[in-house]
């Protein structure tokens, strides 16, 4: 259990290829491994969404390549409705777990947090390595579902019982594929629990001299709060997945009711509660939204002042808001279940905190806007993605006000309104946070600058693209366009078809634009201009050490911190800012 000696003294730089690049204990390597895993996952998830969008727009046309990939479930390239559901399930699962959780939290958090608090590594480097490889195994187990005879599951990323619990009778993919899903997510939970444990212990115990809690950078605060949320959330999802897998392979009846007939077969189970799964799942599921987005809050709050050359407005308020969001996130899960047969009193009890949680979220947004108000903003790509983050978070957040009310949600819940809402507020916003973090920390991670011109094209085209995809979905939802259908070829839905075609073109375009990002990522890594120690004139500790940092970050010494991370607009020896480890006194410019 004890790894403190390793953590305190740091571990020696490994020499072999395996220990250096594969089974590394170095938090920086592990952070990059998480980001690489997320990159593979996001490309996989994006291709799946392309298949879905193509079929939605042109239900009678062959989807390119798909016929060869899945000759059974997409004969001639035209997918069956079950295949559509399988793609939807895998898209959602891959994106939520292996992209939105791993990249902003485990990826950037691993790389940056120990340096920002002045530590040589994470508190438990071996657990940290295990955390990544366990997550990697979880991803491979999930992908294995593509290669089993019945294909991937069709239960959606929420895997609602009882269909997710009964086996192959529930449809193609609901045999081994669904079991692999449950096993994969259970393994994933273990990986994230190990990660959360590390983040909490590192933040509490390995802060360097002078790094009081209130001097921690906002990104570190966000990762810390996220790890507390994750610790609780994944501790509940893990039992839920174990019980689900036991229902499937152990013959138990936790979630399967008595007398259930599926595919004309009476299921040999009795007395289980499908609602129990929903409660356990959403007790994790709603905080998961904040696990995805709070690191984005931290990244934006860390980056914006550096480019606004102004201190972040209300730093203590921001931290209080993040705590409030974290706490309230555990009181709102029932709003995902308004349509599951909920007592109206219970619905109100879940609706009220859902509306209250919008207050700290709104305050945070105002703090960002207040920070850039009147500032001479340096329009770097990272700054643009931060502004884009605020924009899509507000756009998606506003539709949340509607959905928080049971009476309105009853109409909108099963429609594209919800698809547009959560893609904006959780998906695209978190992705913009990831992009901002990448453009900001890439010079530190690889010692080379990314190309700003390509970066700006990447931002503007992506920004326009995501609005073209997800904003129309809100109108589709208001018009009653149901979600989860593989095609809209019948009567009243036909009118929505042109908008679906438009969204599909926008999705293909936005996806293609990401080639700019990939090119920039690879080209800059080898050919970009050499990065100085502190290219952005930022204040936190990662900008005091070489780019890329040495194995033990600070070269066998622990830095001493004298200031908070928010000292912009000051008169310092290096310019209009004062580094956290600079002993000079503050003087406002």
């Amino acid at each position: 259990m004890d790894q403190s000696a390793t953590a305190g003294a740091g571990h020696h730089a490994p020499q072999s290829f395996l220990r250096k690049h594969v089974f590394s204990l170095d938090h920086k390597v592990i952070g990059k491994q998480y980001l690489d895993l997320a990159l593979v996952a996001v490309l996989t998830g994006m291709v799946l969404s392309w298949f879905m969008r193509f079929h939605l727009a042109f239900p009678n046309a062959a989807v390119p390549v798909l016929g060869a990939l899945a000759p059974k479930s997409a004969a001639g390239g035209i997918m069956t409705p079950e295949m559509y559901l399988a793609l939807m399930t895998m898209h959602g699962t891959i994106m939520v777990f292996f992209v939105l959780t791993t990249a902003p939290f485990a990826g950037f958090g691993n790389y940056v947090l120990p340096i920002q608090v002045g530590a040589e590594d994470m508190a438990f480097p071996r657990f940290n390595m295990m955390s990544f490889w366990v997550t990697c195994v979880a991803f491979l187990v999930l992908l294995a579902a593509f290669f089993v005879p019945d294909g991937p599951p069709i239960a959606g990323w929420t895997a609602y019982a009882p269909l997710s619990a009964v086996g192959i009778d529930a449809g193609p993919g609901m045999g081994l594929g669904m079991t692999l899903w449950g096993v994969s997510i259970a393994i994933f939970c273990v990986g994230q629990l190990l990660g959360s444990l590390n983040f909490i212990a590192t933040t509490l115990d390995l802060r360097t001299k002078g790094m009081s809690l209130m001097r921690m950078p906002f990104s570190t605060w966000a990762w810390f709060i996220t790890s507390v949320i994750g610790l609780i959330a994944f501790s509940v999802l893990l039992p839920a997945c174990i019980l689900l897998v036991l229902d499937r392979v152990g013959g138990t009846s936790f979630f399967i009711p008595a007398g259930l007939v599926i595919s004309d077969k009476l299921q040999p189970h009795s007395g289980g509660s499908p609602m129990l799964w929903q409660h356990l799942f959403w007790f994790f599921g709603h905080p998961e939204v904040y696990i995805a987005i709070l690191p984005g809050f931290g990244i934006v709050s860390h980056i914006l002042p550096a480019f606004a050359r102004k201190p972040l407005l209300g730093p203590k308020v921001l931290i209080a808001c993040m705590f409030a969001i974290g706490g309230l996130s555990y009181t709102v899960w029932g709003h995902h279940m308004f349509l599951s047969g909920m007592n109206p009193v219970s619905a109100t009890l879940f609706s009220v905190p859902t509306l209250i949680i919008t207050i700290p979220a709104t305050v945070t947004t105002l703090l960002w806007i207040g920070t850039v108000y009147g500032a001479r903003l340096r329009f770097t790509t990272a700054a643009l993605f931060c502004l884009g983050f605020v924009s899509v978070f507000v756009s998606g957040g506003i539709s949340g006000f509607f959905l928080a009310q049971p009476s309105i949600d009853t109409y909108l819940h099963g429609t594209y309104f919800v698809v547009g809402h959560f893609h904006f507020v959780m998906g695209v916003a978190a992705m913009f946070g990831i992009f901002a973090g990448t453009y900001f920390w890439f010079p530190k991670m690889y010692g080379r600058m990314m190309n700003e011109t390509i970066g700006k094209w990447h931002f503007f085209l992506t920004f326009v693209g995501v609005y073209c995809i997800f904003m129309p979905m809100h109108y589709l939802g208001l018009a009653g366009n149901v979600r989860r259908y593989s095609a809209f070829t019948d009567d009243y839905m036909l009118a929505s078809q042109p908008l679906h075609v438009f969204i599909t073109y926008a999705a293909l375009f936005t996806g293609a634009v990401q080639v700019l990002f990939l090119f920039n990522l690879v080209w800059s890594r080898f050919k970009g201009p050499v990065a100085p120690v502190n290219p952005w004139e930022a204040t936190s500790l990662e900008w005091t050490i070489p780019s890329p940092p040495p194995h033990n970050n600070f070269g066998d010494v622990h830095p001493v911190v004298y200031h908070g991370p928010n000292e912009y607009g000051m008169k310092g020896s290096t310019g209009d800012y004062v580094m956290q480890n600079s002993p000079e006194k503050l003087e406002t410019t």
Partner: protein
Amino acid sequence: MEAVRSAPPSIPSRTGVWVGIAAITMSFAAYTSALLVRQSAAPDWQHFQLPPVLYWNTVLLLASSGTLELARRRVARDGDAAALRSGLMLLWLTLGMGLLFVAGQVVAWRDLMAQGLFLATGPSTSFFYVFTVLHALHLLGGVVALGVANRRVQAGAGVRALSALGSASLYWHFMGALWVYLLLVLTIKM
């Protein structure tokens, strides 16, 4: 710019164990709430007699917490070789009692199986096996931690060994408390 060549003062292993305890507590809270919901979901809950060996196992586990605490205090006595030796003996005893507890749990499972009560027999037996098997797995984690601490103490009772032993002890005592809680739930609900 000033820098110091000292290691940070705090010991993360203890924080790590506390965080782990929080996660395990949350996890068993989820199982307990699942039990309560499942029991009220349908009238198919069957009561059965808990195997008596469980109570002996409980005594054993609580006693092992006592021997561990004695061991920890003796090992911590600075420069006392005799105390270190008896501390090590007590540590081995604790490890043995922990393994005996798991063996006792296996006896309890075999007892139930002999009565025809398996994992899938009914919701009450399902929860019994889930609770007891998961607790035993967590306890085996504690056995590994105690083994690591034991090895470090044998190598010399320095700060590193004492820190490992302190963290492992905290986890072990929690395992005992968790088991008492689970036994209470099982006694009431089974």
